């Protein structure tokens, strides 16, 4: 009896009791399905974050106040008030800085914005014209904030498409209309192009106003919440980071960089932080899914033990007719492996389907994680061997006389 025949026989045995076979593999189906779905979704959201951060520009450094120890107190990142427009101007004009192309001083706050009876809570960015260049913003209609707007503190605003829809409804041209925040009214002069995406840093859900307007008219402050610095190329990122760092240390009168009241992060740093968070979540969830795989494996072992007991007479007969121990082991081991691999394949299809549905409803890019699929198939095979071994061993150890007598 060769292996191929043995496998065919296992299949026909398993199809006899379809209900039981189905229930036996359910644990594996759910386990493999959730592992694949979770890993695929994890990879998809990681990719989305990467795409979003990449779209912000990869030569970008962000200078934020606070974030490093100030005496004994550690300031919250972006929470300080020590960064000023003068710092930004110094970076722009300093002769010691050679690797910086453009800078963009920014002041951002969340605020309630009202148009008639509609209102939305969104991020308001006080910016210079350079912001559009650095962040690769393009407009679908109207114009961006101009230098003149900044100089004259004009009450104008450029809004994201999401804001436009929220405030004016679909299909309405908001150019020339007024929006209100706090006590101030702003005139919409431009709408940015939709970039898609959701959640963290959604560029479609923002309002841009002249920096001077934001500082003086809206909030009455003189500090910045961040300065974006674009390096001349990706190769000089570190140089740019050092140049800007030393300049600001000198300006803020710090000798020790660890004492600085600002931090400079590159996009790579931000990306790493974000990836770390999603990575941790993916690992955690996969761990839970792996536990369900273990439970599924125990289910297989249970059903195989029942099968061995139920088929004691058959095993006795097979041994009486000349089946060697190896053949009996293989027969039951193959049954277990066929169960787990079938479960694995169904689970894989289910997992891909779930991640497809979820990623399309959550606006994530759909990715199939081949690594996860190979891993899952391998794991389900291994589960078959591990949890099928004991029942198969037990079957092969049965004494033919006892087994034939068994009722």
């Amino acid at each position: 009896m060769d292996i191929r025949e043995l496998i065919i026989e296992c299949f026909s045995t398993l199809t006899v009791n379809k209900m039981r076979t189905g229930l036996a593999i359910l644990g594996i189906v759910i386990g493999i399905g959730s592992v694949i779905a979770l890993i695929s979704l994890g990879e998809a959201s990681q990719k989305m974050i990467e795409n979003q951060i990449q779209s912000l520009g990869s030569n970008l450094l962000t200078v934020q106040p606070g974030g490093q120890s100030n005496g004994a107190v550690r300031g919250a990142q972006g929470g300080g008030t020590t960064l000023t427009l003068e710092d930004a101007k110094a970076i722009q004009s300093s002769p010691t800085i050679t690797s910086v192309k453009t800078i963009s001083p920014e002041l951002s706050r969340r605020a309630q914005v009202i148009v008639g009876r509609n209102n939305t809570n969104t991020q308001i960015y006080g910016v210079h014209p350079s912001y559009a260049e650095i962040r690769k913003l393009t407009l679908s209609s109207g114009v961006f904030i101009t230098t003149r707007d900044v100089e004259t503190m004009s009450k104008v605003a450029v809004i994201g498409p999401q804001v436009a829809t929220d405030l004016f409804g679909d299909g309405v041209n908001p150019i020339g209309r007024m929006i209100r925040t706090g006590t101030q009214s702003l005139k919409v002069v431009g709408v940015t192009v939709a970039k898609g995406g959701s959640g963290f840093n959604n560029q479609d859900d923002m309002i841009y106003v002249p920096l001077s307007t934001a500082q003086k008219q809206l909030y009455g402050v003189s500090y910045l919440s961040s300065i974006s610095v674009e390096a001349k190329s990706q190769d000089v990122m570190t140089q740019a980071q050092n140049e800007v760092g030393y300049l600001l240390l000198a300006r803020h009168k710090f000798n020790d960089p660890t004492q600085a009241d600002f931090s400079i992060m590159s996009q790579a740093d931000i990306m790493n932080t974000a990836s770390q968070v999603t990575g941790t979540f993916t690992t955690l969830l996969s761990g839970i899914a792996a536990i369900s795989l273990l439970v599924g494996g125990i289910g297989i072992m249970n059903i195989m033990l029942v099968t061995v007991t139920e088929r004691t007479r058959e095993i006795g007969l097979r041994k009486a007719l000349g089946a060697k121990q190896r053949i009996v082991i293989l027969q039951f081991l193959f049954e277990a492996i066929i169960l787990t691999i079938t479960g694995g394949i169904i689970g894989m299809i289910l997992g891909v389907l779930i991640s497809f549905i979820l990623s399309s409803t959550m606006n994530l890019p759909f990715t199939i994680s081949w690594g996860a699929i190979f891993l899952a198939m391998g794991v389900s095979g291994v589960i078959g061997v591990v949890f099928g071994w004991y029942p198969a061993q037990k079957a092969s150890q049965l004494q033919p006389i006892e087994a034939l007598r068994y009722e």
Partner: protein
Amino acid sequence: MIQLKDVSKIYKTEMIETIALSHVSFEVKKGEFAAIMGPSGSGKSTLMHILGALDLATSGEYILDGESVSKLTQDELADIRNRKIGFIFQAFNLLPRTTAIKNVMLPMAYAGIPKEERLEKAKKYLEMVGLKDRMYHTSNQLSGGQQQRVAIARGLVMNPAILLADEPTGNIASAQAEEVMSLFQKLNEEGHTIIMITHEPDIAAHANRIIHVRDGIIINDEINKHKLKVKS
């Protein structure tokens, strides 16, 4: 052909020793049709297990077709059973939900005979036991007598040294029992060696030789002078 020399079988549990067979010796020659008779607890089942290489004797020697079956491993015993012994059980012991032909092919599969040869031989032997038109019926679609005939075909396909039948008519109706016994006599006439274990005198009467066992020893071993001949 078959030689038992001073064979004893003792079952030991923690407290008690049970002597199932005590210094049994006998021979069965090629072409014989012997019945082993005895009441339950007489040791005839133990004898059958040893003759069938399903179990090993505690002491003594068993020689089957020139091979000593006294100290063998599980797998070696399986091989002996496969090549030398055709089993016929009281409860038929066919694989459930499996066709007659596949049941007959099973011992040949374990012997590693190629598939075409297996099919051919299985058909031949099923035809011989009169089940040509039932080859593709599954075991639960066959009557008791038919199932036992499938089992006989399965016992014969490896051309074993002996056919070992354990209460072969115990689970079938008397009319069909006659059919099975007539088949045994026909096979015996063709030269097959048959050892049959039974407690029914009517069935034992079909054999050429009757061995009586009681309390683990042979109390009588004689030629059956009143052999019951079934018309086939």
